[in-house]
C-alpha cells in the first residue's frame, strides 16, 4: 500500500464513520437491548424482573403455539412471495406490451399498493364477508373464508398478493423499459421464438432486479402482521397467527417483555438469515456478470 492509498483509506474511514455510528445506534443498539431483555423474565405489571438465561428459548422450543406461528410465517412467506413474483412479472410484461392507457393502468396498480394495510384488511373483510360478501356472490358459494381452518390462510395470502404484487410489477416494468429494443431485434433475427426470447433474453436481464425485489418482499412477508391482526386475529385455532402477531400479543397485550422479546429475536434471526442468503446469491451474480 502506498502512502497515498493509506491516506485515502483513512479518509474513507472518516467519511464512513458517521453512517456506521448512526446505523449502530439505530439498529444494533435496539437489537442488543431486545436480546438482553429476552434473557430476562420481565413483567412490569407484577414487578417481576429477573434473569432467566435461555429459559424463554427453551420454552419456545417446545411451545406448540410458537411452532404453529413459525409454520404459518414460512407458508405465508413462500406462497405469497412466489405468487407476487409470478403475477407481478406477468403484469409487467403485459404493461410493456400494452399500447394505450399505460399510465392509468400504472396508477391503478399503484393504488392497491398505496393503501394502508389496515384499509386493505377492511376491504377484504367486506369481500370475504360470509353472507353476501363479494367473493361468495361471484363464486356462488357460501364459503367461510376467514373462519375455516383450511381457507383462512389462503384468503390472507390472496389479500397480501393483491396488495403487494404491484410493487413487484413496478420494479420489473422499470427494468423492462431499460432493455434496449436492439436486443430483441437481434433475438428476432436469430429466429428466437417468443418463449425462447423470454427465457434467454428477458429473464436473465431481469434477474438482478427480480432478486432484489424478492429480497424486499421476503423480508416483508416474514414480518407480516397487519392483515392477520385485523382480519382473523390469528385465528381460527391460531392457523393464521404469524410470529410477529405472537410477539405483539406477548409484548404489548400481555406485557411479557422478556418472553415477547425472545420471539422478536427469533424473527430477527430468521430475517437476517434469509437476507444473508439472498445477499450471497446477489454477490455471486455480480461476480459472474
Amino acid at each position: 500500500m502506498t502512502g497515498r492509498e493509506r491516506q485515502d483509506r483513512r479518509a474513507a474511514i472518516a467519511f464512513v464513520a458517521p453512517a456506521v455510528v448512526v446505523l449502530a445506534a439505530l439498529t444494533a443498539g435496539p437489537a442488543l437491548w431486545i436480546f438482553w431483555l429476552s434473557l430476562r423474565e420481565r413483567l412490569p405489571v407484577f414487578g417481576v424482573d429477573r434473569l432467566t438465561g435461555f429459559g424463554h428459548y427453551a420454552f419456545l422450543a417446545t411451545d406448540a403455539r410458537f411452532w404453529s406461528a413459525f409454520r404459518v410465517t414460512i407458508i405465508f412467506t413462500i406462497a405469497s412471495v412466489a405468487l407476487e413474483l409470478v403475477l407481478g412479472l406477468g403484469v409487467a410484461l403485459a404493461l410493456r406490451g400494452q399500447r394505450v392507457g399505460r399510465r392509468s393502468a400504472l396508477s391503478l396498480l399503484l393504488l392497491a399498493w398505496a393503501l394502508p394495510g389496515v384499509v386493505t384488511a377492511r376491504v377484504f373483510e367486506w369481500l370475504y364477508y360470509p353472507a353476501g360478501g363479494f367473493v361468495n356472490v361471484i363464486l356462488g358459494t357460501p364459503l367461510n373464508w376467514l373462519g375455516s381452518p383450511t381457507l383462512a390462510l389462503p384468503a390472507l395470502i390472496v389479500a397480501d398478493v393483491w396488495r403487494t404484487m404491484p410493487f413487484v410489477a413496478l420494479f420489473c416494468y422499470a427494468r423492462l423499459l431499460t432493455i434496449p429494443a436492439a436486443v430483441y431485434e437481434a433475438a428476432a433475427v436469430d429466429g428466437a421464438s417468443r418463449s425462447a426470447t423470454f427465457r434467454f433474453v428477458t429473464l436473465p436481464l431481469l434477474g438482478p432486479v427480480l432478486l432484489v425485489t424478492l429480497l424486499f418482499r421476503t423480508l416483508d412477508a416474514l414480518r407480516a402482521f397487519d392483515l392477520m391482526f385485523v382480519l382473523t386475529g390469528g385465528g381460527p385455532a391460531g392457523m393464521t397467527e404469524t410470529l410477529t402477531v405472537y410477539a405483539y400479543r406477548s409484548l404489548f397485550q400481555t406485557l411479557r417483555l422478556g418472553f415477547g422479546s425472545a420471539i422478536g429475536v427469533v424473527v430477527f434471526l430468521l430475517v437476517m438469515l434469509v437476507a444473508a442468503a439472498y445477499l450471497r446469491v446477489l454477490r455471486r451474480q455480480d461476480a459472474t456478470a
Partner: protein
Amino acid sequence: MTLPDARNILTAAAVVAVVLLAGCGERARPDGPVTIVFKHARMFGDDPVPRLIAAFEARHPGIRVKTEALGASSDEQHQFFVINLEGARGRGAGFDVMMLDVIWVPEFARAGWLLDLTDSLAPGELAGHFPAAAEAARWNGRVWALPWNFNVGLLYYRADLLARHGLSPPRTDAELANAVRVIQAAERDPKLDGFVWQGKQYEGLVCNALEALWASGTTLIASTGEVLPDPARAEAALARLRGWIDAGLSPAWVSAADEELTRRAFGDGRAIFLRNWFYAMDLFEEPNSPVRGKVGVAPLPRLTEGVGAPGATGGSLLGVSRGSRHPEAAVALARFLASEDAQRVLAGGSVLPTRAALYADPALVAKRPHMPAFRDLATSARPRPLTPAYLMLSTSLQPEVSAAVVGVKSPARAVADARHQLEHALSGLR
C-alpha cells in the same frame, strides 16, 4: 454602631429570603386554576362528554379539564396506556383521569398505575351500581376505579318470528334448538340463520366461552387460583359451542364473527337469535332498521334448567393516574362523571349506565324503552375474571377455544392444552 448595622443587614437578608421563598411557593398557587387531562374514547353519535365537562368546570372554578381522545379499539387504548404509564414509572404520564376497560382495573392496580380511591369515597358510594359493575372496580379489597358505563351479554330474539310460530322466548338450549328448527322449517328462507354469536379468535370469543363455562356450572379460574378447575364441565362448555355449529343451529361463519358482524346479520333480519351486548339494541331500534320493533331480549339460554346463565360484563370505569399532579381535582372529576346525574346525561346518548336506578328513570325509559328489560340482566351479570393476569389468560385461551369451535381440536384436547398454556402464562408470576 457596627453591630446593629450587621443585625439590620441580617434582618434584611432574612426578609429577602422569606419573600423569595414565598415567591417560589407562589408559582404553584393552590387556589389558581389547575388543568387536568381526561383521556377517553369518543362516544357514538352526539357525545355528551363535553357538556358534562362544562358542567364540572362550572361547579369547580379552580379546575380546567382538557379532554384527549383515545384510539378506537380496546387494543389500541390498552397499548397507549401501558406504554405511557410504564414509561412514566409513577411520575406524571401526561393524563390524570383515564377511561379504563372493565378488564384492566386489576392489572393497572397491580402495576401501581392507579391511585387507590378507597379513602376518597363516601361510605356506600359504590352501592348504587350493579354488583358486577362495582365488583370490577375492586381488587385486593380496595377500590381503584369508578364504574362509568356498562354492557352485558344477552340473548336477542326476533319477537315477530317467535310470535308467528306460537313460540315463547327460549330459556334453555333445548328450547332454542326447537325454536330454530320450527322457524327455519316454516319460513323456508335459506338466508335466515339460527343463532349467531362471536366465534372469531379474539376477546369476544372469550366472553362467549366464559358464559358457556358459567352455564356449565364452572369457571375459568377458581378462587384458589387453579385454572379450569373442572375439566369435565369445561369440556361440556366447549362441546356446546361446537355443537351449535354441528347441529346447524349456528352458521359455520360464526367462527370468524365478531360483535359487529353478528349484529349486522341479525340487524338485517338474517338471524333469529343473537348473543350480543346491550349496545346493539339502540341500533336495532333506529328509524331505518329492518328489525325495528321486532326484537326481544332475554337471558342467555341455560344449558340445564338448574344452572343460571349470566351474561359477561363489559363497559368502562374511570381511574386516576397515580402520577397525577392534581389528584384531588382528578378524583373530583372521576366522582362527578360516575355520579348518577352525570350517568343520566350519558344514558341520554348511546351508553348504558352502571347505576340500577337509572334503568327505571321515566325520562330515560321514554327515550330508550328497552332499559327496564336490561335491569334484571344487569343485576345477574358476572364480570370476567378479576385478576391482573386477565389478558394473559385471555390471549392464551383464545386459540384453544377457537380450535374447539372450528373442530380442529376435540373439547377434551382444547381444555387440556388451554390448561397447559394458562399454567405456563401464570408460572412467570411465581
